[in-house]
């Protein structure tokens, strides 16, 4: 299966918005900035495209202005096509649709799009997993096993006390799921769902129609947990590096993990590049007294101070004599002179005046909201 003309990719851009509410106040999960020059939706979109999937629907809910601006016509992902290509599916895009509450609900709203795609298979992905995955072998495994649903999972660690949401699979010797739990009272290693699913369009149609008639809205709670239905759920293990963003602390951690060369190379693979909207920024200018260690720096920055263990997004300015450590400075952040910054996340367009000192902690980074001036 070289060119997956018969596979449709669907991205849920607004699911998990509540996980990092600081960053999603004015945007969807999909448009949360990540890794210096990306938005979280770049990962599922690039994974689809790199898997040969050239028809993609993006399902949004609210606050999708920045998402529209980011994905545009889909050209950056080579998805501005006559045949297939990228389709944005906002709520109310179909006459009978409403604001949805869960994935089944959302799929019901956009069903006519899915129906008209003529795809045999549908791959669903959220925007909360940062990874590089090839869906081709997963689709092949799905077909070979004759599964109803294939759920992508990874070996992971779950700690219920963190209060984050997780789907945990029990997997039998035959590779099929024999147990599904959501947020179970446990702490330890497990098979963690990555919120990526593969289904045939026919099967998906069936469960979407049934869900509408029974007023079921959630894929996890109403379909996966419904063991009485007897659905054959194949577990497909994703072995590559991934990070799951389900809190501000994990967002902070996931960004900083890109400083690890092995992890960075696993995400930004040469043959499967992560694509994003380009911005025509100039190269980074490092000044005469700049001092940089272990940092990821996007273009358009002008750095005259000291930067250690940081991710700097496009167009950041670091003034003379400032020391910025263990921090994420997103797009167009300006840090004045002689500042001291540590364990801080700044949202877009933050201005920090000269001689300010800001410190957060690793587990609870200090978050500075969009456009703030300090």
């Amino acid at each position, binding site marked *: 299966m070289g060119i997956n003309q018969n596979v449709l990719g669907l991205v849920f851009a607004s699911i998990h918005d509540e996980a990092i509410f600081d960053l999603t106040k004015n945007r969807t999960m999909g448009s949360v900035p990540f890794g210096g020059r990306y938005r979280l939706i770049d990962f599922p979109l690039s994974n689809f495209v790199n898997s040969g999937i050239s028809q993609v629907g993006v399902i949004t809910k609210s606050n999708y202005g920045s998402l529209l601006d980011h994905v545009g016509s889909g050209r950056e992902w080579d998805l501005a096509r006559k045949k297939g290509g990228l389709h944005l599916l906002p709520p109310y895009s179909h006459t009978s649709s409403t604001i949805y509450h869960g994935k089944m609900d959302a799929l019901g709203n956009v069903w006519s799009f899915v129906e008209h795609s003529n795809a045999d298979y549908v791959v669903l992905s959220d925007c909360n997993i940062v990874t590089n995955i090839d869906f081709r072998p997963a689709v092949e495994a799905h077909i070979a096993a004759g599964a109803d649903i294939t759920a992508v999972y990874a070996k992971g660690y779950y700690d219920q006390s963190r209060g984050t949401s997780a789907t945990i699979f029990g997997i039998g010797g035959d590779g099929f799921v024999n147990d599904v739990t959501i947020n179970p009272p446990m702490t330890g290693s497990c098979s963690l769902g990555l919120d990526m699913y593969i289904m045939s369009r026919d099967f998906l149609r069936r469960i979407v129609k049934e869900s509408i008639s029974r007023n079921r809205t959630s894929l996890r709670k109403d379909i996966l947990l419904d063991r009485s239905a007897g659905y054959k759920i194949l577990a497909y293990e994703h072995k590559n590096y991934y990070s799951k963003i389900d809190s501000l602390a994990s967002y902070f951690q996931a960004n900083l993990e890109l400083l690890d*060369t092995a992890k960075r190379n696993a995400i930004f693979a040469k043959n499967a590049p992560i694509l994003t909207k380009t911005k025509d920024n*100039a190269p980074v200018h*490092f000044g005469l007294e*700049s001092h940089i260690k*272990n*940092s990821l*720096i*996007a273009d358009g920055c002008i750095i005259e101070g000291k930067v250690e263990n940081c991710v700097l997004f496009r167009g950041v300015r670091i003034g003379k004599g400032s020391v910025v450590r263990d921090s994420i400075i997103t797009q167009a952040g300006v840090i004045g002179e002689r500042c001291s910054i540590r364990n801080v996340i700044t949202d877009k367009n933050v201005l920090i005046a000269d001689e300010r000192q800001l410190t957060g902690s690793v587990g609870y980074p200090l978050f500075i909201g969009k456009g703030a001036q300090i």
Partner: protein
Amino acid sequence: MNTKKEVVAMLLAGGQGSRLYALTKDMAKPAVPFGGKYRLIDFPLSNCTNSGIDTVGVLTQYQPLVLNEYIGNGEPWDLDRMNGGVHVLPPYESNSGASWYEGTANAIYQNISFIERYDPEYVVVLGGDHIYKMDYAKMVDYHKAQKADLTIAVLDVPRSEASRMGIMICDEEMRITEFEEKPAVPRSTLASMGIYVFTWSKLKKYLIENENANTGSKDFGKDIIPSMLNNGERLYAYTFEGYWKDVGTLDSLWDANMDLLAPAEQLNFYDKSWRIYSRHSNLPPQYISETAEIENSMITEGSVIGGKVDFSVIFGGVTIEEGATVQYSVVMPGTVIKAGAVVEYAIVGEDCVIGENAHVGRSPEEFAGESRSNWGIAVTGHRITVSEGKEVAPKQILSESI
């Protein structure tokens, strides 16, 4: 049927750029990388877009593969248009035969039919090897105000440099009275920047006359401008103020890159109102490791820096390993500089490998007194390997791996 365009730009991109030697062995001069993430042609193309000119013909001839692929559909410069846009114009065969572009004027002559499709009032003729930001719309306005037939952009240069350039002698109204190519004793310091605005009806007439006269040169400087002057046409000089650099030689290419690092940035890349656009390869942000030492340099996406970088311009996807040193140098895309290697006062081409403990170039300080004339920047062409421990001497231009 195309909509009429008031202005069409024609960009002369067919030159070999032989004075860039190894760097233009397999690509046309306008495709040579510059300034971290650009190629020379980005400057005139971005100027066109920023000046509101949306119809550009790019005349290609010598080694056009890299350039053609780079220009593509013109989308990076906003020149993918339903009407107009950027068009690559190689020489072609017609029912009267096929011929290469013989000179700058002949290249435009052979594309009269391209220009006529847009029925323009004015044609802007540009080169592809200059670094500058310029609003061509202002120059066209000046051309109209002077009721000129040809307006030539000029730069006031130091007298010492004037004898290496095409010099305009003007009256007090800036009307050009004489034109001298590389005069031994310059009578003016107004040097041509190779940027012309022609009234199209006039240019067309002179192109046809020049073609029929068959002078052998078919060149703007040698034929068109002198005959327009002789016939008393209205030629005006348009004075440009700002950064402008001819990067036709290896030394000037190195200089222009180093200019970007000067504290008073003469060419502001960070000005959002006049961006220089380029085709991107969508690489991840650069990673600066624990062992890196970086000062006063420009570095761009996709690079991984573990060594020492000082006063240098590093392009995309370059790897500088821990223990390597790069200073006062230009390192083009995709090159790997291995541990212990030293690159100084050098230009290293695209996708090169500088082996462990190899040494490219030398500091001029090592060449005191009389031996100074033996010093110059060292250059390696594209896709060259300098093996472990090998040396590339100052002034050496390496076009084969060693």
